[in-house]
């Protein structure tokens, strides 16, 4: 059996990356641990945590996948006026503006069904929208920098960009969410 499908071969490629990413994620967890009191006071915010983290990672990974495909096809140049770069960046921010208010309203609605949301609907929507837009801008920056780094170091962006972007966006997701909570609540 070749190493690509042996337990040892897969572990040898995956484990170092998984451990490095776990250390990054513990940083994200440390932010949650620090604001644990606020989270337990307002459980609606707890509902927002996985979806905010997930959406940030998804926006980043979709952008990363699209940019690396454009890069492989020779369609991408690292120039702020580049069509692919500009168009995909704009789409990422507009997607965040569309989806995050829905996410905020959904979190409030679900919490309203099972318990007391403790925060007004408008506040939760505003927290979700503010963090979403900030995250979209950060996801664009992280993705472009990582894709450019992969290109400079002659690495395949498919292998390195998505795991880095997804996990960095996880940490940023938590930080930005609590930045927004701190500013609004």
């Amino acid at each position, binding site marked *: 059996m070749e190493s690509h499908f042996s337990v040892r071969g897969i572990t040898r490629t995956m484990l170092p990356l998984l451990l490095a990413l776990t250390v990054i994620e513990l940083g994200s*967890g440390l932010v949650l641990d620090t604001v644990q009191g606020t989270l337990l006071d307002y459980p609606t915010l707890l509902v927002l945590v996985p979806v905010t983290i997930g959406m940030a990672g998804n926006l980043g990974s979709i952008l990363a996948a699209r940019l690396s495909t454009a890069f492989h096809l020779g369609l991408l140049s690292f120039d702020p006026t580049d069509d692919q770069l500009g168009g995909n960046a704009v789409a990422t921010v507009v997607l965040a503006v569309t*989806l995050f208010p829905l996410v905020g309203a959904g979190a409030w609605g679900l919490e309203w069904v099972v318990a007391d949301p403790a925060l007004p609907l408008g506040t939760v929507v505003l927290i979700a929208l503010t963090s979403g837009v900030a995250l979209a801008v950060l996801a664009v920056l992280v993705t472009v920098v990582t894709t450019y780094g992969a290109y400079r170091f002659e690495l395949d962006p498919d292998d390195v960009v998505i795991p880095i972007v997804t996990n960095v966006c996880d940490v940023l997701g938590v930080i930005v969410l609590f930045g927004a909570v701190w500013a609004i609540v």
Partner: protein
Amino acid sequence: MTVREVAVGAYREALPILLVSATGGLFAGLVLGGMEAEIAQVPGLLLLVPAILATRGNVYGSLGARLGSALHQGLIDPAVTLRDDRLRGAVVAALLNGILVSVIAAVLAVGLLRFLGRPVAPLPTLVGITFLTGILSGILLTTAVVTVVVVGYRRGLNPDTLAGPVVTTTGDLVGLATLLFATRLIVWLGGG
């Protein structure tokens, strides 16, 4: 293409899948919201949530991608069986790595919180919880990924576009639901 055309194309392509994964994420959040009592009772549990969820995504997303490529290359047969050496190798490696990394995360979390002088549950409690979560979520997610990829392939769908969404929508929900179950079990056994 103009910037506008690229943006409209990218928006239309991504919106449906993001809506589906946002819905999955909200239900995962509902489970986390329901864990208030456990979070207060087991200090350090909340710190582990991002690491546990990301490990599920990284390990089982990679399993889906590996199986998708192998099906395209004809290296494995589209059948749900552990008799195939390659399929078994990929599944066992995903389970082992998922469990090992979760347990290491618990050890690191306890060390980190003790170093910072913050409250933290005993090491065996958190290791027990992450070990159990790793096993239970691993079995559920492996079954989901292998079944969806193999059945999808047989029906003529591209496994590469199936595996990602399945893992992102079910991964967090399964991860948090098994974390809640494991925490309640360990606390009930006297580990809290």
